[in-house]
Every structure is written in C-alpha cells, then in structure tokens.
C-alpha cells in the first residue's frame, strides 16, 4: 500500500492519500492545476516535503533510484536517450513480448527513434515502465493522442497489471476512461486535491 501523508511542494497544498495494491485512482483537473507536480512529488523528482511509504518501506530510508523503481512516474512527454527503441529497455529481448498487447509489433524493439509517431512513442514509453514492473505506476496522460481501439488495448494491459497487484495513479481528461479503470478519483484545482468516488 502506498501511503502519503502531508505531501507538499510549492504549488501544491499538503495532501494525504492511500493507494492499496491492485487499485487504480484517476486524477482530473484543468491544465496547470498541479497534477504533474503531484505525480513528480510522489516520485521525488522535485524537492518536496511530507512522508511517503510503500508498505513498511519509507521513502526517505531508501536511495531515490530504489524508490523510483518501486514507484515509477511516466511523463506526458517521455524522454529518449538512445538511437533505437531497444536501448531504452533493460532487457530488449525479454521486453519484446510486452509490445503486441499494446498493438505494436515485436520487432519495434529494433526501430530507430526517428521513425516513431507520437502514439508509438507513448506506448513504448509505457512498455519501458511495465518492463521494470514497478509496484505503483504514476502515469501522466498515458493514452492522450491514441485512437479508441488502442486506448482500450492500453487499458486492458493496465488492468492485467492491477490484477497482478500493481497500483495505478493516472491523469486523464476522459471521465469515461476514469470510470473504466478506477472507482476513486482525485480532483486537482489550483494546487488543492480533493478525493471523490466515481
């Protein structure tokens, strides 16, 4: 269970939040409300105050990279550092089988970055997170820019991860998508977070 107490940073009022394994929570809010700031604060990517823990393991007791392997954040516009898709996977050969459920061919692992479309990049960035099997996924608009079929495929992949016990906190602007994946939702406005059921 991800436990957050009094998490705050400039632009974000202190907030408490619990996310049990196997559960998804959707996050809504206008642009600039602080959704990304919130996800980045949980992943410890920006200076922040407050307590985060995963089970008994407290965030401040472990090196930040260890925490981020357990609680992984995926940006709305993910970055790339290698020339080929496979350069971004820990084990490109094993990672191949993650691709077909996301409606990508296995040999996409050998593609060059230059030929990828936005939607392909987004799904490959997700595959890169899934490969590392984090306990909590913090996904910033994981399906923006995907067509309806592909969106459903991504949601199906996420649901199997939830069934396996991973937890998910994701940003979306589509209330229907929120309802398909989650029962609880966070509404963020001007740095204030309120929780509601969907």
């Amino acid at each position, binding site marked *: 269970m991800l436990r957050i107490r009094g998490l705050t940073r400039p632009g974000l009022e202190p907030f408490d939040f619990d996310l049990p394994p196997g559960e998804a929570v959707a996050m809504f809010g206008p642009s600039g409300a602080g959704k990304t700031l919130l996800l980045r604060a949980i*992943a410890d990517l920006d200076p922040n105050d407050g307590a985060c823990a995963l089970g008994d393991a407290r965030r401040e007791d472990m090196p930040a990279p260890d925490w981020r*392997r357990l609680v992984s954040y995926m940006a709305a516009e993910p*970055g790339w550092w290698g020339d080929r898709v496979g350069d971004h996977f820990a084990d490109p050969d094993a990672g191949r089988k993650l691709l077909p459920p996301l409606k990508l061919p296995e040999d996409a692992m050998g593609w060059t970055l230059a030929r990828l479309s936005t939607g392909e990049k987004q799904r490959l960035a997700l595959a890169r997170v899934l490969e590392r099997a984090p306990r909590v996924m913090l996904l910033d608009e994981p399906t923006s820019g995907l067509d309806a079929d592909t969106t459903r495929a991504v949601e199906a992949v996420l649901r199997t991860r939830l069934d396996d016990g991973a937890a998910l906190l994701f940003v979306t602007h589509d209330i229907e998508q929120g309802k398909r994946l989650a029962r609880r939702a966070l509404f963020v406005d001007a740095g204030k977070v309120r929780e509601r059921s969907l």
Partner: protein
Amino acid sequence: MNYITLTYWDLVIAALLIGVNAALSIRLRLSLERPLVIAACRMVVQLLLLGLVLKVLFETVSLPFTAAAALVMVLFAGYEVMGRQERRLKGWWSYGVGTGCMLFGGTIVTVFALTTQLQPEPWFHPRYALPLLGMILGNMMTGIALGLNTLATNVGRERAAIETMLALGYDRAEAFRPLIRESVRNGLIPIINSMSATGLVSIPGMMTGQILAGADPWDAIKYQLLVMFLIAGATGIGAGCAIYAMASRLTDARHRLRLDRLTVK
C-alpha cells in the same frame, strides 16, 4: 644568450602601425579609432605594470609573493571563464567551479613540472613558475569554458531524457553520463587541434620568443613540447573536474535534476 635589446624608440616606431590602423578606421568610418587607441594604451600600461611586478618578484624570489601572484592570475582566469558562459550556475558556484578547478589543475601541473622536469633553484623560482602557470591557465580557460558551456546548454535540451532515466530508477551518474562525455570531449578538442596544428600551421609564440631571444631552436622546441604536454594535462584535469562539479551541482542527493540552480539566458 645574446639577443638584440629593443630601445623605447624602436617601440615608438612600431606603434606607428597602430596609427595606420587608426587612419584606416577614420577613412572607412569604422569608428574603431577610439577603442583601438584605448586597447593599445591598456596593453602598454598592463605590460609595464607586469614588468614592474615581475622585476620585483624575480629580485626577491619569495615563495609567498610568487604564490600571491599565481593566485591573482588564477582569480582573473576564473573571472574570464565565468564571462564566457552563457548559462551558468547561480550564485558563487559559477565563479567557484571554474576558479577552483583551475587552481587545482594549474597548481598540480605547474608544481609537477617545476619539481620533476625543470627543477629550478629554488623550485618555485618565479622566472619559471609564473610564465608556465600563465600559459597553462590561458589554455585551461578555453577548455573549461567550452566544457561547462556544453554541459549548461545541453542539460536543458536533454532534460526530458535525463528526467525519464531518473524516473525509471537510474542514478544521477548514469543519467548524466552521455552529457558528461560530450562536455569533456568538447573541452578537450581545442588542445587536440592545437597539438596537431603546432609546427605546421602555427609556430608557437613561446618558441618564437625563445628563438628571438637567442635560444637554440632545438632547446626552444623541447620547451614548447614540455609546455604543450603540461597544457594538455592541465586542461584534461581542469575540464574534467569542472564538468563533474557542475553536474553534481545540477543534481542533488535525492538524484533530482536541479535546473533551478542554473541561470536563465
């Protein structure tokens, strides 16, 4: 060594060439005559002062005085490095990183040369220590400034890549590795180029000076080679340290990218 001593009249005659430039500037309306004359006057005053300082230093041969002069040179070089950076670290870090690394690399290499290859008596004799340090600093400045500039400029461009690596659980050393490599490479390219061109395209100024002063060309060349090796070593040490220092300042203990510590252009 026997060499032809210049009289002040010789210099006055040579300075007439500045007058030629000034005339050209007036004729073509470049409005460069004022900066030209001011720069020439600055040069004369600076060099005369340097001459006075060196004369005193060479007569006293004192370790504290020599060290103080060396420190002043490093402080000026640090200022120059800071001035050449477009985006720099905020606060004193910008000056501190460049200056500290030049102090470190310049001292190590100069002392190394003085104690093992040149071995003047005493080892810190300003006649050897200060010109060596000056040449080393002058070249280190270029390497360090280029390296730091590369890092500061590209860290913004590569922000998404670095933060994605960090978010996936890579540590800051891994996330910065490609950038550090590129920055050190850029810092070292000038010295590599200058080593390959030396003797073909350029006859180094130091060697020219020694030959004019009556030294045997062979001795002058040996000195030049020594100096080039020292410069290469010092540039590598200085640029490497400076780039690592800046990279660590651009991250923190929680392995976050801290672009907020960089000035905005």
